[in-house]
Structures are given as structure tokens and as C-alpha cells.
């Protein structure tokens, strides 16, 4: 009937190792390419020279500018791409289990439209200027947070969360917030500001710095571990309310926890990278096609594949129209769209539509 029948622990470990290797190679290649090309040997020499244990073993035979390009510019950017890709992918997988619907993506909770209002306020109106270079990220996060809060309270019926209301509230709040962003944009007379907002909306990792990495990395690792540890509960959510309740899941509490985890992760990622589309939607589908619906495998493989995918998308965004940069959202949509259509045309892949 279909090809997802036999994914065992052994295959999972093997597949994970392969993907880890691909991730390592992708990171190396991505650091190598750019306006100044660098050989792989230097890439790893510079990286290892920064690790305390290896510091003394490596002879410094590269220029200061090479070191800056590798360590200050490209490495943080590649790592940010990996974290954002992996984070959006697991957030997407989790939200699809939460709403039991495979068309959901992490932005359905209103995160991206809320963040866009915050970003627009900073870029056009100059709000939060007292926060300096962190103004954009902070405002985006606050916007995302407020928006999720709205969606969350609108979806409550009594003490419980209604999933259908969650979806609809997400759409309604997103529409309102987009209108606000557009209004601010329309009233603006600053040409540069409008372009900056457009770039922000399509996502970019161009500003990556080491200092931007810490919070997203910590949040990603925590959320990843929590989701993975709860793979049994996520599987039961996929089966439905009745199975969850009768197999001992405290449904109400677990849904709340999921909403908090997903919005926290997505909010932080959007704050540093803008709203990069498609990753959170298609990566979980590709992963289910390979490993089946079992979240024991879906969560880690989504993280690996999402990270690899976004590293390549970011690399393309840097080199395609160099020295200009292509917004990464355009790349993810152009690569992801046709693949998704191909997936749609396959008869033996169920999008979660049942028999």
C-alpha cells in the first residue's frame, strides 16, 4: 500500500547518522562559499582553533580577515540557519499534531503576523529605539507574544481549548494584525523603511551574530527535548481526543503546554530571522513520507532535515544574485512549492486525510 511500513529503531539510527554527516558537510560547504571563497581545511582549522582543547594543536596560518569572515560572519550565520530550520520544522510537526491537521504550520497561532507588526513599528515608526540593535528582535517577539495571547484566549471555551476555535482565532487575529502592519506601511513615506519591512517579512539571516544565537539555541534545545520526550503523547494526539484521554493523557494540560512551547520557539525564531515560510509546513510532510507518522522518529528527523534545508536555502540566498542577497523566504517557497505539488500528486502519501 505504501512505503512507510518498516521504520525501526535500527533504521532510525542509521538514517540519523547519515543526516548528521550531511549536516556537517552542508555546514562546511556553506561556510566555504561566498564573495571570498575558503577551502574546507581552513574552515575547520579556524573552528577548531576556537575550541579550548584543540587551540594549541593548530598552527595559525590564515589571515586575520579570513578568520573574521569565517568566525564572525559565516559560522554564526550557518548555525542560525540550522537552528531556525530545525526549530521551525519541529514546531510545524508539533502544531500538526496539536490541531490534528496537516495543513497547519507554526504561524497559524498568529506568531508571524504579530511579529510583523512589531517589526514594522520598529522599522517605520522607530519604536523601541532605546533597545538599540535588539529593538527589531525584541519588538518582533513582543508582537508575536501578544498575538498568541489573543489567539489563546479567543480559543478557550470554558476552561478548555477548542482546536477549531484555535485555528479560526489564529486566522482572524492574523488578518487584523496584517491590516495594522499594512496600514503603518501605507502611511509611511520612507522608501527605505518599506523595503526593509518587505525584506523582514520574507525572512533573512543576514544579520546573524554570535550574540543573536544564544537565546534561540537554548530555547530550541529545550523545546526539542521536551517534544521528543513526549512523543507518545503526540502520537496519541494524532489519533484523536478519545484515544488520548483513554490512554491517560491529561489532554487539557498537554495542549496548553504544547501551545506554550510552540509559540515560544516560533516567536524567538521569527524575532531573529523574520517570518520564513514553508519550512514548518513541508519538512514534517517530507519526514512523514520517509519515516511514517511515529513522532519518536518524526521529531528528530524533522529537526535534522529542517536544519539542512535552511542552510542550503540561506546559501542560495547569498550566492544567487550576489552581491545582492535574495530574501530566504523566496528560496524556501520556490524550492518547497514544487516539491509539495509533487507530493500532492503522489497517490500513496496520505496527508492525514484518513483512508
Amino acid at each position, binding site marked *: 500500500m505504501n512505503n512507510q511500513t518498516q521504520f525501526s529503531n535500527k533504521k532510525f539510527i542509521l538514517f540519523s547518522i547519515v543526516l548528521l554527516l550531511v549536516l556537517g558537510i552542508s555546514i562546511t560547504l556553506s561556510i566555504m562559499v561566498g564573495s571570498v571563497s575558503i577551502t574546507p581545511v581552513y574552515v575547520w582549522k579556524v573552528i577548531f582553533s576556537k575550541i579550548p582543547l584543540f587551540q594549541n594543536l593548530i598552527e595559525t596560518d590564515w589571515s586575520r580577515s579570513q578568520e573574521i569572515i569565517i568566525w564572525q560572519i559565516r559560522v554564526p550565520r550557518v548555525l542560525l540557519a540550522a537552528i531556525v530550520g530545525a526549530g521551525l520544522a519541529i514546531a510545524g510537526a508539533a502544531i500538526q499534531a496539536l490541531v490534528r491537521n496537516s495543513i497547519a504550520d507554526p504561524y497559524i497561532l498568529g506568531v508571524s503576523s504579530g511579529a510583523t507588526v512589531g517589526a514594522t513599528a520598529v522599522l517605520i515608526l522607530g519604536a523601541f529605539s532605546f533597545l538599540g540593535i535588539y529593538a527589531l528582535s525584541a519588538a518582533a517577539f513582543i508582537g508575536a507574544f501578544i498575538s498568541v495571547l489573543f489567539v489563546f484566549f479567543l480559543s478557550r471555551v470554558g476552561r478548555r481549548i477548542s482546536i477549531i476555535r484555535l485555528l479560526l482565532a489564529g486566522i482572524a487575529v492574523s488578518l487584523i494584525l496584517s491590516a495594522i502592519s499594512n496600514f503603518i506601511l501605507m502611511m509611511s513615506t520612507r522608501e527605505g523603511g518599506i523595503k526593509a519591512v518587505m525584506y523582514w517579512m520574507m525572512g533573512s539571516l543576514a544579520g546573524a551574530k554570535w550574540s543573536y544565537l544564544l537565546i534561540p539555541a537554548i530555547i530550541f534545545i529545550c523545546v526539542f527535548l521536551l517534544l521528543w520526550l513526549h512523543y507518545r503523547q503526540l502520537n*496519541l494526539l494524532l489519533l484523536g481526543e478519545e484515544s488520548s484521554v483513554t490512554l491517560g493523557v491529561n489532554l487539557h494540560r498537554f495542549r496548553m503546554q504544547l501551545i506554550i512551547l510552540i509559540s515560544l520557539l516560533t516567536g524567538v525564531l521569527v524575532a531573529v530571522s523574520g517570518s520564513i515560510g514553508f519550512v514548518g509546513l513541508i519538512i514534517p510532510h517530507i519526514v512523514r513520507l520517509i519515516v511514517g*507518522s511515529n513522532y519518536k522518529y518524526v521529531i528528530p528527523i524533522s529537526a535534522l532535515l529542517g536544519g539542512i534545508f535552511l542552510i542550503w536555502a540561506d546559501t542560495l540566498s547569498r550566492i544567487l544574485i550576489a552581491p545582492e542577497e535574495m530574501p530566504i523566504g523566496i528560496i524556501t517557497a520556490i524550492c518547497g512549492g514544487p516539491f509539495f505539488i509533487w507530493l500532492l500528486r503522489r497517490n500513496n502519501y496520505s496527508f492525514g486525510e484518513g483512508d
Partner: protein
Amino acid sequence: MTLQANYVSYSIHDQRILHEVSIQVKEQQFVGLIGPNGSGKSTLLKNLYRLLKPESGTVLLNEKDIFKQPSKTIAKSLAVVGQETPILFDFQVRDLVGMGRTPHKKLFEIDHQEDVRIVKEALSQTGIAHLETRNFSSLSGGEKKRVMVARALAQQANILILDEPTNHLDIQHQLQLMDLIQTLHLTVIAALHDLNIAAMYCDQIYVLQHGSIVSYGTPEEVLTPALLRDVFGVYAEIQTHPLTGKPHLTYISEQFLKVDPKETSSIII
């Protein structure tokens, strides 16, 4: 292991669905719940397995209120095979049955050899060991039901709640499934549509009508022509089957009844 409902009432949008229903399921009993469509059978079961919370009244599992215990604790002693719910995301049979182990697992615990063994045993007990690696969506209706029963077995609960287990099954699979459930020696409460099946397998039967229990007892005591006429609105002949020794019902359609129209109206509701 006993399950007990005391004066359970439940409403949806101000409409009473259950009205002070009390039932008792004793250790190793097979209790049937019968009643026409909309009489509240499923709602009652859902109140018993915590999907719905009674408006008033209590549900006791081993004399303890089920709403005052953690969901995990309840799931260790109470398993449910619901009406067919569509499975939107496909799973392997093995994984699906393995989900029955969830209430026994702590957060950091992996699947042990023991869990694998329990799953295998549940699969072979339900006669579906050969389907282990198949996808659920590729199975027939009868096989799917067996998978759900196997999941309940893997759960190692002592009480099994069944909501119209024989729905959508052909007659052979209906009997096979009921035989299987009987051989498990669990405490069972099942909502049943087919009254002959109820008569054959149940120790005790509760009859629900408009959300209230209207009759209770052994199949012989409960299944009478008068009850079938009053509650189900059908005329039926009831004999003791020579082989099974159980009551056997034959429903007689209106058109075969040679009664004058005045009387018919009192029979047919």
C-alpha cells in the same frame, strides 16, 4: 475491579441526555447496555471513561472517584474500544498497539523488551500477529477492531469498555470479536445494538430509554416482548434457543402483523 455510576446526569446545551443513571459492573462480569438510538448509551460510556464529566453524580472505579485520580492511574485499569474513529495519520499496527503501553511509561522511559513482549502477546491473543508491520489504513474493518482490542490488551487494564464493538462488521466477524472478548476474562461493559448478541454474551443487561435506566437484570429477565414493544417499538417473538440456552429474538415487521390498525398504533412508536 468494579465500576460504578451513581446518579449520573449529563446535559448538552440544556438538554438532558442522562438522568440520574446508576449502574454497577462487578468483577469479571459482562454487562450490556442496550437502548434505541439517542437513548444515551454512548454518552453514559463517555462519562464512565472520563471523556465527559457528569453534571452531577459520581463514577467510581474500585470505590474511588475517577475524577479525583490522575488520568494515568485510570488508564492503567480501564481500557476503551470506542466506535470507529477515523485515523487520519497512518500508523503501523505494531506502533498502534504499542501505544497501549503509554500509561505505564514514565517521561524518560524507553520501550523495554517487556513492552515488546506484551505487544506481541496482545497481537497473537487477538489473532493478528501476522499484521504486525502492516499499516492500519490498509486493514479491513474486522482487523481494525481487533487492533483496537489488542491495544486495550497491551494497556493491561482489567476493565474493558466497548462502544458498539460489532458495528460495521459482518456476522462472522461479529461473533469472532465477541468470542474473543469473552475469552479475555475481563470485566466488560459494552453498548450493544444487536439484541441477540447482547442476549448471547451478557451476564447482566441495563436498558436505557430517554437517558434513564428502565430495566435491569439477566438477559432472560430483561428481554421480554413487552420491553421490546415499549422501549424499541418493535414486535418480537422470544424463544429460548435449544443449543445456546439463551433467549433468541425474532423481530416481526409491521406488515406481517395481522392486527387491526388501532392496535398497531399502540405497538409502533
